[in-house]
């Protein structure tokens, strides 16, 4: 919670915004005292006897221990499956450190994860849950493809890519706009609507790939045509495309915007205390809408970068699970736009390591979802000092 943020940026308004969401108990002070007493055998007792909390570990140490614990528990899962955890971790490690290319794969995978995570972190600043990154990535890729089709290689590479990026962001922002509109006009909870929209996005993708965009020459499963060279991202080295640079710049840029721009400040006020924001005349509806749609645009760009930098063609299951991984990455660092770089890279390394697990240890590559989940649980539950204690 906010404790995490105090270590480096004290006036982090958004951190407080997240704190509000975090409580599952009434947060008016009078209620809280009663309910804390209600817990009875829990809170007061924990205060009197020494506990994990009283070790007063500094933020990084606490975080580090939580991460290590997650790895240990995942090892127990592997043991239960009859797999040697040491060998499994060696397989994972070697598949990300074998050579420059394998480390490059981590950077390549970080790109969509990071943008999907920023798509969660930005609306979270305004107190909104966006779990529609999955669909927004897909719609971004679709928007990019639509623009490529419309341009028909009429332009050189750079303008083509710029147009595709803009199309991706606009398409995904409008897609997120569905949830915004449902929220504004009917009061539908955006957590649920963005979640359901993910399934619709995959259906739109299937409709296009099996329909008007189906490559008549493709054998086997339906796919779109392969992108032309002028429609694919330039590479830095090996398979590493410039998308990672774009993603890193945007992460730092978002941090700056949230911290120093008037818009970022207003979002923080909205997330921290919506009532105060309304009384200050901030136009809360439009402000929340802008946050959610800007988040959608970020995810859409992530979809475009993955599509033009890695996939090269649309297929029905493209980027499946990337959006949810972005949610995990954002929550692991409480939506901090710069720290999220680290969590996205960690999850990307685990995902790439999962491929090694599949090849070397014969486990399904989805097994690493356990490790990702454990990491988030460890950080959520033990990564920071218990907030209610401090209060």
């Amino acid at each position, binding site marked *: 919670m906010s404790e995490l943020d105090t270590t480096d940026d004290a006036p982090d308004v958004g951190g407080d*915004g997240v704190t509000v969401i975090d409580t599952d108990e009434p947060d008016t002070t009078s209620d809280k005292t009663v309910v804390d007493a209600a817990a009875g055998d829990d809170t007061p007792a924990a205060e009197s006897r020494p506990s994990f909390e009283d070790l007063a570990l500094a933020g990084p140490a606490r975080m580090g221990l939580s991460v290590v614990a997650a790895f240990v528990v995942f090892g127990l899962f592997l043991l239960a499956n009859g797999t040697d955890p040491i060998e499994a971790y060696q397989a994972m490690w070697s598949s990300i450190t074998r050579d420059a290319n394998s480390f490059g794969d981590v950077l390549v995978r970080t790109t969509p994860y990071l943008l999907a995570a920023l798509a969660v972190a930005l609306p979270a600043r305004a*107190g909104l849950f966006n*779990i529609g990154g999955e669909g927004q990535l897909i719609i971004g890729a679709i928007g990019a493809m639509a623009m490529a089709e419309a341009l028909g290689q009429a332009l050189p590479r750079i303008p083509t890519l710029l147009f595709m990026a803009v199309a991706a962001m606009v398409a995904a922002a409008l897609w997120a706009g569905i949830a915004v509109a449902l929220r504004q006009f009917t009061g539908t909870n955006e957590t649920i*609507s963005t979640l359901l929209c993910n399934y619709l996005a995959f259906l739109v993708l299937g409709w296009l790939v099996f329909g008007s965009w189906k490559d008549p020459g493709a054998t086997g499963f339906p796919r779109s045509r392969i992108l032309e060279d002028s429609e694919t991202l330039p590479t830095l080295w090996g398979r590493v495309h410039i998308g990672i640079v774009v993603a890193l710049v945007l992460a730092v840029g978002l941090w700056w915007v949230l911290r120093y721009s008037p818009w970022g400040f207003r979002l923080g006020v909205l997330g921290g205390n919506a*009532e105060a924001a309304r009384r200050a005349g901030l136009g809360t509806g439009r402000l929340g809408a802008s946050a959610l749609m800007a988040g959608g645009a970020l995810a859409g760009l992530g979809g475009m970068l993955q599509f033009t930098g890695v996939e090269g063609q649309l297929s029905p299951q493209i980027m499946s699970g990337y959006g949810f991984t972005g949610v995990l990455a954002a929550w692991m660092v409480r939506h901090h736009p710069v720290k999220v770089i680290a969590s996205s890279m960690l999850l990307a390394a685990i995902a790439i390591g999962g491929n090694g697990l599949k090849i070397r240890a014969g486990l*399904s590559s989805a097994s*690493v979802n*356990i490790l*990702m989940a454990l990491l*988030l649980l460890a950080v959520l539950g033990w990564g920071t000092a218990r907030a209610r204690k401090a209060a």
Partner: protein
Amino acid sequence: MLEAILIGAVRGGTSIVFAAVGETVTERSGVINLGVEGSMLAGALTAYAVGIESGSPWLGALAGACAGLALAMVQAFMVLRRRSNQIATGLAVTFLGLGATSLFGQSYVSQGVVAFDAYEIPLLGSLPFIGPILFDHDPLTYLSFAIAPAAWWLLYRTGLGLRIRAAGERPDVLVTMGTSPERVRWIAVAFGGAMAGIGGAQLATAFARTWSEDMVAGRGFVAVALVIFAGWNPLVTVVGAYLFSGAVAFQLELQARGTDISIFVLDAIPYVLVLTVLAALSGRRRFAAPEALDKVFDAETRIA
């Protein structure tokens, strides 16, 4: 055609009925559990595997309920003891279920199944129209007919139900009664997890009769949406579940009969239906949300 759709609605909707009714009870206590999707997966694999190993689908269903409950306990512990965010924790629990069933389920992919067979109830089953729709199903489906009224009775006619609702509305009132809202919530989350586990068991051993990775395919998330759709009333939840699976059955029926409409447009119908009804009812049903549950979404509910 109507009969085929209604049969399909009941057959496909059963797993969602279990999950959604369980989640209704959980949410009435003031906890939202997005881990239902993971609990359903855990229930599906466990029921399938235990069914094969023991030869009894009933033992399988029981084990499935326990597996769903076990995952829900992770949610309960994290949310109630560690005070972690409910939405993020729920997603993590679902990821945990996804990964664990993928890891342990690998050796069970497309093995033979010890399945629940359909049992036609004598006399009732031979009724025209109604018989095949309601009285020619697997035993878990019959159990699902009872589960919503039972949950309703639990919530509105028992002391425990009163405490569950109080925990969801005004936990401080419970405190003055000398009851810990936290303990009540543990029970409600456990119940929801067990129901989701049975729902998953029905999916694997009676409906699909197979195990495949990620076979729940969003049904758990739909169940969570249906709870809101139903205004936190277990009886209405059932209507929502059958409406959703009826829409699925409707589009499958259209596909089977051959239509010019793209299957992807048809596949979208159930989701669009749920979103539309949610949107239509949200404004009016907002007041019906348990008060403590609203607090989960605090920062946002105050924006509109």
